[in-house]
């Protein structure tokens, strides 16, 4: 081993055999993905430890969209929290509206008229369609399929136009009230709704024709982001993620609220619980939701005109017609706006099936007109928790569809 060996070939040839078999000295690469990354809609940061392209460890950092929703709700009356619930899951604002208002109604022990229940289901399902279409459309976009994204978003736009017709805003609907809804069904709604549903169905067919059996798309989804049934239950995962592993938990069926027990709809479940199952479950749920919307329209037509709000003036602000003409109602209006309903002392939890899973509101009242505690159980946050488990040992590229089908929404997750 004297001098004169300066060429690389010589040196390599000279190395003892066991030295050659030893790995190169490598370190895991730590990658910061986010908080603002084009492939992760929503502000969330991933700290990914990579071995080549394989994910070794994953740390999810949420909280970039924290606005103090819970505290904000406790600073105003029970009524004033309703517009804030719009800003939880901005894809399906009405679902959060309904969750909050029903939780308050549970504490107040008030009933709403039948017509209102059907209206709420109608609004609820329109919202769910919009949410699932956003999820599936955006997932396609982030897997580089622009066309189905456009079809999905076009269909969502049709649904959001219906929401605008019904509630007055596409996204921040602010439609549900404690003890009722803001106003009844507009006269031209039923016709417009049926027309739009037909268009949405046609667009969904095109959507499915382009991707559902497309090998490029299927290869990206099949077998990625798997989560076992046991892990799902361990992490309290709900919604389409849980149904994709074959567990038919749907609060609309298992704990029927509103009038879901009178409506004919199916709960789709998957087999193995990968992203492909999640995609299929979501697409089927859109079809089921459209079915529910049609049943609601039929039922509302059958019920005919009628009250959509609770009769109790302590709960729901009096109708304007009375406020203008009757002294007592005017006084009541002043009382209920300046103070709002006084919710009896106690606490209660109410959960509804939102598009992402179980959306619950846990409310504590000290008997005053201001909530003592408004706690929201956001499905996004809880479904996001097992994501490192889903992606352990997976490729970096699998992160994108997995994250898309978890459908973490910043507003709801970070509150």
């Amino acid at each position: 081993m004297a001098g004169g060996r300066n060429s690389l070939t010589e040196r390599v040839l000279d190395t003892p055999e066991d030295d050659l078999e030893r790995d190169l000295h490598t370190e895991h690469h730590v990658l910061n993905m986010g908080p603002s990354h084009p492939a992760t809609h929503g502000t969330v940061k991933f700290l990914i430890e990579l071995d080549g392209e394989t994910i070794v460890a994953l740390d999810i950092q949420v909280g970039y969209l924290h606005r103090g929703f819970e505290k904000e709700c406790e600073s105003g009356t029970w009524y004033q929290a309703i517009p804030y619930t719009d800003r939880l899951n901005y894809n399906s604002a009405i679902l959060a509206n309904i969750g909050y208002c029903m939780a308050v109604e549970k504490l107040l022990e008030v009933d709403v008229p039948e017509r209102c229940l059907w209206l709420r289901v109608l609004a609820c399902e329109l919202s769910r369609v919009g949410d699932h279409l956003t999820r599936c459309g955006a997932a396609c976009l982030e897997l580089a399929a622009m066309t189905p994204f456009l079809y999905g978003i076009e269909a969502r736009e049709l649904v959001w136009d219906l929401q605008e017709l019904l509630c007055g805003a596409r996204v921040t609907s602010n439609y549900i009230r404690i003890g009722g809804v803001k106003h009844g069904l507009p006269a031209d709604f039923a016709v417009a709704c049926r027309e739009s549903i037909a268009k949405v169905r046609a667009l969904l067919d095109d959507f499915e024709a382009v991707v559902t059996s497309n090998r490029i798309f299927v290869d990206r989804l099949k077998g990625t982001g798997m989560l076992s049934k046991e892990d799902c239950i361990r992490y309290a995962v709900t919604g389409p993620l849980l149904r994709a592993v074959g567990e038919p938990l749907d609060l609309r069926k298992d704990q029927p609220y509103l009038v879901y027990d009178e409506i004919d709809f199916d709960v789709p479940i998957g087999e193995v619980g990968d992203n492909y199952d999640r995609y299929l479950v979501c697409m089927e749920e859109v079809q089921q939701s459209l079915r529910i919307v049609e049943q609601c329209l039929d039922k509302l037509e059958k019920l005919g005109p009628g009250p959509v709000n609770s009769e109790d003036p302590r709960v729901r602000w009096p109708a304007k017609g009375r406020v203008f003409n009757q002294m007592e109602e005017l006084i009541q209006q002043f009382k209920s706006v300046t103070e709002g309903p006084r919710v009896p002392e106690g606490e209660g939890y109410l959960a509804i099936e939102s598009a992402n899973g179980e959306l619950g509101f846990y409310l504590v009242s000290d008997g005053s007109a201001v909530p003592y505690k408004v706690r929201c159980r956001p499905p996004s946050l809880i479904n996001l928790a097992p994501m490192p488990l889903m992606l352990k040992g997976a490729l970096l590229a699998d992160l994108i569809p997995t994250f898309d089908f978890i459908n973490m929404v910043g507003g709801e997750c970070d509150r």
Partner: protein
Amino acid sequence: MPGSVIKVKRQEKIGWLERLYVPMIIKGLFVTGGHFFRNLRGFVTGKNRTDFVVQYPEERVDYPSAFRGMPVLVALDDGLPKCVACGLCEFACPTDCISIVPGELEGARIERYPEAFDIDMSRCMYCGLCEEACPEEAIVMSREVEISTYDRQSMIFEKENLLVHENLLKRRIDFIRGDYERDREPPKSDV
């Protein structure tokens, strides 16, 4: 309970046609081509347009009657506000963006009026609770949404900027009036 649990149809095996990529590309082109020609026909003939794009700001969509834009004050024929400065909207507003200074006019038909009525539009979230609370139909949600500015100070709208004549707000006021009797049983003849 009607309805049941259904299992989604999972294509475990992909057929050889799908495995070849090319037939699927052609199938995809048929779908996108269908959309393209339908849109083109509508674009050229101008009838039954199926394309979704609106050439804003030259073209605008007509918002539905329920639409909530920025809140404005209803002005009467003499240009005075209908508002009597009772302050209910101030109470109802979740973001406290309304501030009112009440004043009184001796001998006028409507004695109370707002000396100042400011809405901080940078905080307003168009929720419409002010309109719902108002006992005078004096503050309504207009159809105006294009109010962006370059600085925060000009987002504070004062009374003069908020006054809009009643006739211009007719559509919204009619919409609110349709809801006057919402909690009453309808007359039997309607059913």
